[in-house]
């Protein structure tokens, strides 16, 4: 039982780290791509876009945060189910809406609140299941 509790606690910590890094990273990527502009699908334009992406500081900052996401994601997947971690990570979308209201005083539409509620209920449902169900995991627990 203590092992189960410890497993849940460390999974929660890593998922929170994942959510934080992924959200900040995605925002930086969007900002970086806005700086670059729409990319056309031709060899010359793609080569130019590639040069622009590897020299854009905002994109590199985003990549740094996504690297943090990657490390926490890899670590949590070493013990927890993929089908547990993946939906739990979606809590970030709900969190962003709360932060937008609390700190940016943005107006959030009823549709978005319904989405936030569905994510919260969905994450709670997934969170109630066992973080790992595979054979190897059970052997490790034994």
């Amino acid at each position, binding site marked *: 039982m203590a092992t189960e509790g410890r497993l849940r606690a460390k999974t929660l910590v890593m998922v929170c780290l994942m959510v934080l890094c992924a959200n900040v990273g995605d925002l930086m990527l969007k900002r970086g791509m806005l700086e670059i502009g729409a990319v056309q699908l031709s060899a010359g334009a793609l080569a130019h876009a590639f040069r622009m*992406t590897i020299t854009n500081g905002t994109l590199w900052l985003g990549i740094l945060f996504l690297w943090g996401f990657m490390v926490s994601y890899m670590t949590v997947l070493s013990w927890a189910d*993929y089908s547990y971690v993946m939906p739990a990570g*979606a809590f970030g979308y709900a969190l962003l*809406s709360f932060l937008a209201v609390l700190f940016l005083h943005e107006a959030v539409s009823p549709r978005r609140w319904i*989405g936030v509620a569905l994510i919260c209920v*969905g994450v709670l449902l997934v969170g109630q299941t066992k973080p790992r169900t595979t054979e190897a995991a059970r052997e490790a627990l034994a």
Partner: protein
Amino acid sequence: MIRVTVFLFLLIVGSTAGEIAMTLGMKATGEPERLRPVELLRFLRKALCNGWFWAGIPLMALSFYALLLLLSWKPISFVIPASALSYVVGTFGAKYILGEQVSIARWTGVVLVCVGVALVALG
């Protein structure tokens, strides 16, 4: 429209296949004994020697570039709801490829998250 559909397909399939390969690699690596920097570095070094990890990288890179291109063509309020389908595709992958036990509660949660993400991104 066709190029958006193709790149959306690449985004969803690339990310799901890449993450499943990554999960196989991490399970083979085994969890770090403690979450301390030295142990984490040792864990990462071991993970970097795993073939599944390297199989996942190009697939995830493919989905990453598909995401960047989609974001340059379409607003985020279109790209994220459309890519939310990867939660369902990923759960199928977890069940049939990774052999995870996906209970009714977990399936319900995944579908709620998928619809919820789409609604939030639509604004």
